[in-house]
């Protein structure tokens, strides 16, 4: 493996592909996956707290705590991403030691996305029937058990569609990262396509982004529907079958 990386041919190939389309796709995915992961690490607990911490919630927290939490989330949600990227440059330097390049864009992406994730999680958890939570309370569940065994599993389909939305939003935010020297399809479109007026590259990058979004959206939707046990599987199968038969001209 080490030999391979030192091989001159391979190195040249890597160098060449660094400006290529495949590498741009890889950078985009890498940026999106890491940023989404950390946005959920921060946003998921916050989203849970905004629901359970309310007065009359499963684990009521002091009003000032909730007020501050909601205020911070709203503030971060209202700053445009382009401006946020510039504002958090010092933070990126502090955490990663650098404020330019692909990796450096991860910090502003997380800062921009975790409040969004928190709101998505909040919306999903609010869909959980309050009667089910009450039933769990009547059985002697602790607040933690209600969160982990009732609220999150019961809202799983909605959490998955929220996740899909977050992933795609972060993907498109990441495309703006070209503005501060980040990599990926977005920077390819901006730097090569727009500024150097190679319109074919601009279009190819945009089409690639569209294709990526389509792929992830359909995977997300499918997973959300498949894992939702409220939908009667027999009905769904019958409908899918009929649909396919229709398309094949069998009916």
């Amino acid at each position: 493996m080490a030999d391979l990386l030192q091989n001159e041919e391979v190195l040249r190939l890597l160098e060449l592909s660094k400006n290529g389309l495949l590498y741009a796709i890889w950078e985009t995915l890498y940026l999106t996956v890491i940023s989404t992961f950390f946005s959920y690490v921060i946003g998921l607990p916050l989203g849970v707290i905004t629901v359970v911490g309310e007065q009359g919630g499963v684990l009521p927290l002091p009003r000032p705590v909730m007020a501050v939490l909601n205020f911070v989330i709203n503030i971060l949600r209202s700053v445009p991403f382009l401006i946020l990227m510039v504002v958090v440059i010092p933070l990126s330097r502090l955490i990663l030691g650098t404020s330019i390049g692909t990796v450096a864009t991860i910090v502003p992406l997380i800062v921009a996305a975790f409040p969004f994730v928190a709101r998505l999680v909040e919306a999903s958890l609010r869909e959980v029937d309050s009667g089910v939570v009450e039933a769990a309370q009547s059985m002697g569940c602790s607040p933690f058990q209600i969160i982990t065994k009732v609220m999150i599993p019961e809202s799983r389909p909605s959490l998955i569609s929220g996740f899909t939305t977050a992933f795609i939003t972060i993907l498109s935010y990441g495309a703006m990262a070209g503005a501060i020297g980040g990599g990926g399809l977005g920077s390819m479109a901006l730097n090569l396509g727009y500024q150097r007026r190679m319109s074919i590259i601009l279009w190819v990058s945009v089409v690639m982004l569209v294709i990526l979004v389509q792929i992830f959206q359909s995977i997300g939707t499918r997973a959300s529907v498949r894992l939702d046990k409220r939908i009667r599987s027999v009905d769904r199968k019958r409908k899918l079958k009929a649909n396919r038969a229709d398309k094949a001209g069998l009916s």
Partner: protein
Amino acid sequence: MIELKHISKVFPTADGDFEALSDINLTIGDGDIFGIVGMSGAGKSTLVRCINLLERPTQGEVLIDGENLMEFSPARLRQTRRSISMIFQQFNLLMQRTCLKNICFPMEIAGVPAAEAKKRALEYLDIVGLPDKANAYPAQLSGGQKQRIAIARALASNPKMLLCDEATSALDPTTTRSILKLIQDINKRLGITVVVITHEMAVVEEICTHVAILDHGHMVETGTVEEVFSNPKTEAGRKLVFPEGAHIDQFPVANVVRVVFNGGSSYEPLIASLAIDCGVKVNILGADTRNVNGKAFGSMLLGLPEDKNEAVKAMNYLRAQKDVTVEEVPDYHG
């Protein structure tokens, strides 16, 4: 034994405080099936939630086997709640879990090993008569089946008490009867105390041993079902027990009496005998008989003749009957 002492519950609202329950005193003995009835908004659901402190009373004591739940720590309260199961009008099953996993849920919470929980869950599925639904999801079941799974889940924590909050109100009459039968069966076989909240008197007649009537947050009557049904003492009680009584107001008659059958006697042709034995013709303004635990209970509103002598004769005749109470209805609006 459940004892509620001086329970009050006040909800603060925009237009001032709303008193949902005021000074409720209630004792529910072990092994009873206790019905709490009332019109919508009478405070029944709030009252039943006061028993396991899903609603914390503003005032009063909730004693379970002599211990005051209001003084328990959160951890001890959760522990105690495991012995007080509850079923709901909307079933409240976990929709993303199979029936078997739903029944395992309370055992999972209590830390029962998974293998043993599964074994017990299968037994409970058997008790509620749905052994083949272990791997089905709640969305695939009918309302009655969902409630059976909910009952199995309620039994899984090995409770001493079962609280039923309008458990049959979302079901059709046939299913209602079968669910009530199941609850009665569980009460007899496992000796579990049952508290039934309902707005349907038919439910109380079907299974309850004791009943309390709730009206606008006040407990107006309580006693055995036979006592309360044979002769409801309050207006709220009469409205619930004899709901059709209200229609009688349309007929203008001078002397009106209410005849109440206390069981046993109701199959004798009382009015026919009255006409034949005394030669008095009475007007039946309204009647309602019902079968409670195999005994007949009912009330009848009779318009007595204008003639004073005949009226007295009829009254005396009726009063002489066994198992029949007669009372004049002075507030009758003719």
